[in-house]
């Protein structure tokens, strides 16, 4: 049986440790729940402290647009000029076509949501340990919202930088396994978008007056209708605390 010192040592090392023994101790201890609440409040502030505003990438190239192998001799370039001109025109067409494809609001937003998933693979863990309510409240507060328990059990909650804004990134444990929810109050959509890319299937649904909601599941076999149903359930569980 874990004692208070062992419990506190563990949560000081990892306040979100899902070890069930910690929960058993907390539930049966008269003092440790208050200690835990104080630590989690500190943890919420610490997380915000580490996420200072940083300058946007702006015009600075994040990655080079050209291959670094460019460096052939001028003679070779002269001989290849005709081919280069042809290749350039083809490339321009491809780049323009690619840009238009990426600029389509729904698909590019979906692509960014999927790209964001790569950064937090640990969020997809199947678990029955909910995020402590104070931590969830901190994550949702900046988006002026709270979540009704009808949404399902939230096992992961972080405030993430997405397209220049801090947005809630949640994982809800559902009948179809863990499902990610991103509340995108800054991203308006004229209509719902379904997507299936990069091993994720999901929907982005417009939320009147509050941007949109992205809900996605992992795996090629994920049932999009079920995802859509969960999106509706989560949307119905959101309580906006300010406009």
């Amino acid at each position, binding site marked *: 049986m874990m004692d*208070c*010192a*062992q419990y*506190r*040592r563990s949560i*000081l*090392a*990892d306040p979100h440790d899902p070890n069930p023994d910690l929960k058993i101790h907390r539930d049966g201890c008269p*003092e440790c729940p208050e*200690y835990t609440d*104080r630590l989690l409040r*500190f*943890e919420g*502030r*610490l*997380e*915000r*402290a*580490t*996420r*200072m505003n*940083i300058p946007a*990438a702006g015009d*600075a190239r*994040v*990655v*080079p647009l050209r291959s*670094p192998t460019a460096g052939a001799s001028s003679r070779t370039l002269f001989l290849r000029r005709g081919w280069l001109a042809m290749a350039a025109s*083809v490339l321009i067409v*491809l*780049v323009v076509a*690619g840009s238009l494809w*990426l600029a389509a609001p729904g698909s590019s937003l979906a*692509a*960014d949501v999927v*790209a*964001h*998933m*790569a*950064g*937090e*693979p*640990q*969020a997809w863990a199947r678990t029955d340990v909910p995020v402590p309510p104070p931590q969830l409240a901190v994550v949702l507060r900046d988006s002026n919202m709270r979540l009704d328990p009808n949404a399902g059990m939230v096992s992961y909650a*972080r405030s993430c*930088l*997405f397209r220049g804004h801090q947005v809630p990134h949640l994982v809800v444990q559902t009948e179809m396994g863990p499902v990610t929810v991103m509340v995108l109050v800054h991203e308006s959509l004229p209509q719902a978008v379904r997507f299936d890319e*990069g091993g994720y299937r999901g929907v982005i649904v417009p939320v009147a007056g509050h941007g949109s909601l992205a809900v996605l599941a992992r795996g090629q076999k994920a049932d999009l209708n079920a995802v859509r149903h969960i999106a509706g359930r989560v949307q119905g569980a959101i309580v906006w605390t300010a406009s």
Partner: protein
Amino acid sequence: MNDQIGGNLKRARFQALCQSLRPDLLRFAFWLSRDRALAEDVVQETMLRAWKAQDSLMDEAAAKPWFLTIIRREYARCFERKRLVTVDLDELIAREEPMLAAAQDQDLAELRAALFKLPEEYREPLVLQVLMGCSTAEIAAELKLSNAAVLTRLFRGRKQLRALCGEDTSLDPDE
């Protein structure tokens, strides 16, 4: 033609991945180096190295540890190249004041200054856990430590940080 389209899409996807990870990588580099200019250099160099080596990233789900490894190596290279001198902590905090400041929240600014004061051996695993969302095992793999050593550092780091912030630590356990 199809190969070229595939290549362009792949590059666009990789660029989107870089863009989405860049803010947190820059924050991580800043907490590691405690120097905004150096952090920007390190991240820019990291992106270039990542771009050149993108084919070695087989699975996008592994992108974050992949980038973290590059960034830590790049920071170590900068450290060797520039032979960074030890500076006074208060001077360092004053120099990075614009980054540490938090509009309308003095509490956060103080917490950031306290984080600056933590020794690197505690600051780095703490930032990996809190900012980057790394598990104990991931931190252990990145820092080449045992899980137990990581937990000890996290425990000590959080305890010191709370004390530096004037939190009530009277109920904190000893080691």
